[in-house]
Every structure is written in C-alpha cells, then in structure tokens.
C-alpha cells in the first residue's frame, strides 16, 4: 500500500498536492517486445514531473500510455482517484489531459490562431447547425473561447504571428504554437513529448521559462519527456529515469543525479 501523501510546499513557493495520476505496475508489449516492464510511479498535482532516459528506453511509449493512446497489457492507470478503463484518445482529452508531440502535429495551412482555437474543441458544446447559423449560443461560445485563446497567445508571446499560417513558421515557434494549442484545452495534466528537441540554447531557455510559467500561473500539472538531462534537472520537481523499458531511478533531480544506476545508463560504465 502507498503512504498517505500530504501536500507540501516547494522551496520556490508552489504547493504540490495529492496524487493526480498513479501508474501501477504497467507493462506494455508489442508482440514479443516488452517496451515497458512493470513500471510504477505517480504524478502529483501541481508538479513538473519528467521522464528521462536514453534512446529506446520506452519514454514515448510511457507517455502514450498516460495519454491513453496505448493500452498496457498489465497494470492499472489511476487518474484522480479512479481507475481509468481503456479509453479512446478523445475521451482522455475530455478528462483533462492534453499533449504536444515530438514531431509537431499542427495544421500547417491554418493560421496560428485557428490552430490554437482547435485546442478549445472539447469546450465547444453547440452543434454544427448552430455554428453554421452563428446566432446566440454559438456566437457567445466562440467569443468566450477566443478570449481564452487570446490570453494564451499573450502568455506565450506569439501575438505577432497570430494570423500567420503555421507552415511559414520556424521550428522553435511551431513548438510554442503546439504548446499553446495544448494549453487552450485548459488541461489538468499537460504532457509534453520532447518539448526541446532540436532547439538551440536560447530557444531551450525560452521554452523552459514558458513551462515553468505555465505551471506557476495556471497551476497545470506537467509531465514531460526529455532527452536533454541538463534542462530537465533544472525545471523538474521529480524525475523518473527509464532504461530498456525499466525504471532505474525515481526522485528529486539531486537524488537521480547521484544514483549510480542512472550514471551508468547515461555515461556508460566499464564492467570488470
């Protein structure tokens, strides 16, 4: 049994609450290949939780399990105190889980604004006919949603590209637009799949800043996968380390950094 978890306050003044998502003994197989082997960890409300590991460690698979895209053969996923049955991705989205992708998945021909508006989809209630006629409720809804979206555009400082088609944007900005779209869904839990992949140092710093600000300002719980150890250690509260589908470490950045198994996995080691 797990200990009862008390909320606590981090040194920088954020409150970390109870367990939001609990992964219990997850095993995921693709045919005979075990991508994830009996992994358990939890994500607490309000924290920034990172999953790191070398290439092929099973990080993305883990994220896909959390997002409901993969269904593990064994183990249970608990979300907000309830066991989550196998679900379709859109159902997971309605639960309040949003994500970004490793290889940006935006609508290239649409403007930034329209892309971010699609993030509000789960919050739109009026039907297609009402939308087409554009009266009363449908109009009000659109205005409300646009307001939310504009706040996010302001927050992520992408006002200047509001009306620019996404296809014309450089990579770093596309990543930011994707984050904006995920945020537009007002998620409880935000999943970021390698948010800093392919970025230069300056872009990484900007992105780190935005991740911290999102967490701080909206109180969004964030789970992120990242390759770049340095950045992760700086911004996460707790880190899970995976290697070959197994969990080899779990704890605060400092604990993880000094964990001999983690050092072996990352730096390699000569076994005599």
């Amino acid at each position, binding site marked *: 049994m797990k200990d009862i978890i008390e909320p606590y306050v981090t040194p*920088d*003044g*954020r409150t970390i609450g109870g367990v939001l998502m609990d992964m219990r003994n997850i095993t995921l197989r693709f045919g005979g290949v075990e991508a994830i082997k009996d992994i358990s960890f939890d994500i607490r409300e309000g924290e920034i939780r990172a999953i790191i590991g070398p290439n092929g460690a099973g990080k993305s698979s883990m994220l896909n399990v959390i997002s409901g895209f993969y269904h593990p053969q064994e183990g249970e996923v608990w979300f907000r105190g309830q066991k989550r049955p196998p679900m379709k991705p859109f159902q997971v989205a309605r639960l309040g889980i949003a994500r970004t992708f490793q290889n940006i998945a935006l609508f290239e021909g649409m403007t930034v604004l329209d892309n971010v508006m699609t993030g509000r989809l789960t919050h739109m209630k009026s039907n297609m006919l009402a939308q087409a006629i554009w009266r009363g409720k449908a109009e009000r809804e659109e205005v409300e949603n*646009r*307001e939310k979206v*504009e*706040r996010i*555009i*302001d*927050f992520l*400082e992408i*006002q*200047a590209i*509001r*009306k620019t088609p996404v296809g014309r944007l450089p990579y770093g900005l596309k990543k930011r637009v994707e984050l904006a779209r995920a945020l537009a869904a007002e998620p409880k839990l935000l999943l970021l799949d390698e948010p800093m992949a392919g970025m230069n140092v*300056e872009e990484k*710093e900007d992105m780190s800043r935005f991740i*911290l*600000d999102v967490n*701080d*300002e909206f109180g969004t719980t964030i789970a992120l996968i990242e390759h770049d150890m340095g950045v992760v250690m700086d911004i996460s509260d707790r880190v899970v380390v995976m290697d070959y589908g197994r969990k080899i470490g779990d704890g605060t950045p400092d604990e993880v950094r000094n964990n001999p198994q983690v050092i072996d996995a990352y730096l390699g080691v000569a076994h005599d």
Partner: protein
Amino acid sequence: MTAPASSGLSSIPALLARNVAQHGGKAAYREKEFGIWQSWTWQEAAYEIDALAAGFLTLGANVGDHIAITGRNRPALYWAMVAAQKVGCVPVPLYADAAAEEIAYALEHCGARFVVAGDQEQVDKIADIRDQLHELDHVIYLDGRGLRKYDHTHMTSYDDLQEAGRKADLMDEVAKRTAALTLEDKCVMLYTSGTTGRPKGVVLSNYNVIETSKNSAEFDHLQPGDEVLAYLPMAWVGDFIFSIGQAMWAGFCVNCPESAETMQTDLREIGPTYFFAPPRVFEQQLTNVMIRMEDAGRFKKWLFHKYMKVGREIGPKLLDGEPVSGMERLQYRLADWLVIGPLKNTLGLSRVRVGYTAGEAIGPEIFDFYRALGINLKQLYGQTEATVFITQQPDGQVRSDTVGVPSPGVEIRIAENGEVFYRSPGVFVEYYKNAESTASTKDAEGWVATGDAGFIEEGTGHLRIIDRAKDVGKMASGALFAPKYVENKLKFYPDILEAVVFGADRDYCTAFINIDLTAVGNWAERNNIAYSSYQELSQHPRVLDTIEAHVTEVNKSVAADGMLAGCQVHRFLVLHKELDADDGEMTRTRKVRRRIVEEKFADLIDALYGGKSEIYTETEVTYEDGRKGKIKATLAIRDAAVQSAEQVAAE
C-alpha cells in the same frame, strides 16, 4: 523668459484636467491587448491616474522624489508619469532594453525611491542591482506574470497600488500637490544615451515642455482627433514630447502596440495621422516593399514601376501646392487608385497628415519614395536639451538635405568653427547633479551648444548639418574631415547598414562597412550565392565587389563637393559582425560610438593604413543574456577608386 500664452496651464496634470473638461468622453489612450484595441477616454485615464497618484502617497512619496519608469510603451506607464507629477514627484523614464548596470547608474544617480516596471524582465534587472541602490524603496510592477513567488515586502502590483490609493482618503493631498505645481517645477528628467561617457540626466521644466508642445503643435496644426502610435522608447525625449507633451496639449489619442514585434500590423490597424519614425524604420519599410516587388509577377511589377514613376513626378508637386495640370491630376488619381493607395494602406500610412523623421540623415531616394506616395514626410533637428525642437521643415518646403528652419521661438547662431548654437523656450534647466557639464553646454545668456557643425543655407534660411562638431577634424594635409557626411552617403545604399569612416590626422580616409543582411541576403538568394553565416556573406567576393562599386560612386559625389574632396574613401573593409549596442559599439538609439569602435578594432585600422590586403582578427561579442563569446575572421581589405582634383576639374 517670456510669459507663455498657456495661461493657467502650468503642468501636465493641469492639461489633463483641461482635456477631461473639454473632451472627457473622447479616446485618449488605446492599447492592443488580447488581439483587441482597448481604449480609455480622458475621463477614464484621469480616474486611473488619480488612483495611482494616491497610491504613490500611500507609499510615502515626497515632493521632489524621483520615480523611475521602465518598460515598453503602455498607457499605464504613461499614466505613471502623470501620476508622479500629480504628487509633486519627477518621472524618470528609462530605456527598457538597457543593461542592468546602465539602469543601476541612472537609479543611483537620481536617487529614485520608486520604480514602476513593466514586467518581470525589468523587475529581475532591478533585483540584480538592488544592493547597489541605497535609496530605492519600492518597485511597482505592471504585468505580474512570473512574479507571484517574489518577495513582496518592497514590491507591489500596479493594480494593488491603485486599489490602495482608491481606499485611502488622500485625494485632497493629491489635489493640493497638483495645484502647487508651477511652470518652473521639474516636469521630467531624461537620461541622454550619451555617445561618450556616462549618461547625463537632462532636467526639463514644465515651462520647457508645455511651451515647446504648444509651439510645435501649432506649427503642424495638431488637434484632437489626431492619432499617434507610441512605439519608440519612452525614455527618449521625442516620445515624451509626442506622447505626453503634444498629446496633452493638443488632446489627441496615443495608441500603444501589442508588442514590439506587432508594431507593423498595429500601425496598419490604427492608421496614425501624425507619425514619427527614425530614418531606419522608413529605410526598412522601403527595403521590404522593394524585396516583395521583386517577387511579384511581371504585370504587377510593370504596374508598380509605371505608377510609382507617375507618383514621383506629381506627388511632391501636389504636396507642395505647386501648379499641376488637369491631365497630371488625373494620372495621379489613377496611380493612387491602382498602386499608391493600396501601398500606403499596407504600410499603415494612409492617413498620415504630418510625418517626421530625425536623428540621422535620410537618403534622398527614401525621401522621394514617401513623398511620391503623397506622404508629407518632413525632417526635424533637435536634441534632448532643447526639448526636441531646434529646426523643422514647414509644409511645402521639404527637402532631403536640410533639417528645416528654426522652430517657433528658437534662435540659431553658428559659431566660427561651424558649431550650431540655439536659444529657445525649450532649453533645459540643467544636467542633474552635474553643474560642470551644465556650464560647459549652456552659457549665461542661455545659448546651448549642439555639438553639431552646420551652416544656414543662403536664400532659403534652412539649416544644413554636416557632422558632429567634435568629429569634424583636419586631415594630415589640413583638408577638412567630416566623416558623418561620407558615412551618410554610403548608408543611402540599401546594401549598407552602417559605415564608419576614419581619417583624422591621416593622409587619406578609410572605412568600415556593415552590410544590411536583409538586402544583401535577399540579393544572394536571387543570385544563387550560398552562405552559412553573416560573416561568410560579408566576405563574399561578389558582395565586396558591389560594396566597392558603391564606395567608388560615393567618392565621385564627395569629390564634387570641393571643400570635402579630401574625404574620399581610399581603402575599406566589410566588418564580420554588425555593430551592436550590446557590445557598446553603438548607443541604444543606434548611433555609432566612434571612439569605442576605434579602440576595439584598432588592429583593423592599422591594417587599413598598413597596406595589407587581408587581416585576421578576433572580436569579443556579448550575447543578449550577457554571456561573452569570440568570433574569429579573416577580412579582405579593398582599395576603391578615388577622383583626383584634376579629374573633378575636367568634368
């Protein structure tokens, strides 16, 4: 001092009160936020300002305290300046992009007790230097994002302070202090960017600001209903006069863009009627238009060039009220309908009634382009110490090579060495805590040295500026050396962003050149020239060929000006990095700091005069976050053809 006609209106808060009474319901401020233009009437603005003024009192602001303001142009920050004045304090706007040390110097020098900061970036900068600031009491921030976790014992949000002000019963005290303001009181203190040495705090009185605003507003018939876009640094005297002085005097509306990057879009949406931009902005706009026209289809190109030609011929005539035949009028109308109108709209200049540029010389072709569009683009000459205006061009007398006639109330005198002196109602009170500099700049009779050399053109009475007086020197041969004159000619080429000419006490002149990455990059793309970095492009032989051709052309035109024929550029090199304010090579207003460039690149100058054909160099650069790095490069040095005196005579 002559008694001003502005009877009873002896402070900015008094002007505000008048505006509330006369046109309280009209828009006074707009700001684009969340994609929508939010606006405040004079009445609403006054309400916000009152609350903040009372808020300052709750913090214990005393009469005469300095309140620094830093951040991008936002109505709330303009209100903070007026609120400070209402309680007898002196607003000190600072450059938002200044480094922490620069801010530390200014804050410590003026002993600011309060800082109104735009956002976290500004607050962080102040936090970094807090230990050095002995008199700083409280920081008030506008955008609280990312600041929630900060220690709030000496920090308050703008909204909270206003709330506290509204709750406290202090409006009587605010009114009392406001009523006590006189024309002699300090209106504002502005730090000059300083091309040399430490910045100086220029103190301007209410008399300076109000009288100047009144004169200049009348000169250009500014009135309620006019619109400006406030996008230039708030710490710059021009913005203070346009967005506060003239806006308050004439009662027009100040519009603030959403962010620095959206300025062009916002400009288009607002369509200002009164517009100021440094030549750089106009240059950039023209370069962009030309680049995009290159990409247009054949028919569009043909249409553009045909009707721009019509515009060039007839546009300036119409602006100057010269006689124009019915046929020409018809042609221009057609051009306006097909090309000029849509282009102006795209540029956001459809409604511009009065446009100004200043700060640097503007290229004749840039000037002609905007005039062809029917935009009344004029030049003015001014400085912080004069509360901006020294000379300006009247409607109908606009030229690219002069800076106009003395502004109303301004007297001009040219000293023997060519330096321009002026005396006007706008002449500053003093440099704060710097009596020595005050005395050396302003004499007992109120004449101020501009530091610029120039002459009054015979016949027209227009002033022409040649160069900084201290930069005008002699060459080894005794010939006159005016580097800026040559640099400006070079910079008129779109390929050349910046040029620095050397030659004082030397046998001949040489130059450093910075290419314009937008223009040259575009040209390279068109000509299939591959490059991986600014540095590589800058040293490409074909780029060097083009620049050499430009230098040769400039030499011809310099040679034609007898007095300055010695300033022809014999040798030049193209720099491997852009001159940058972060590296101290330019001021924040992007003027070259000649001495620093000379010291920093001494090896390159030696090479220019040493007859070498290339030089290896290492240069330290500072990144935006303050880290330093080194760039290494081998630069080619080229010779340019010069005209001898005989050749000139022969032509």
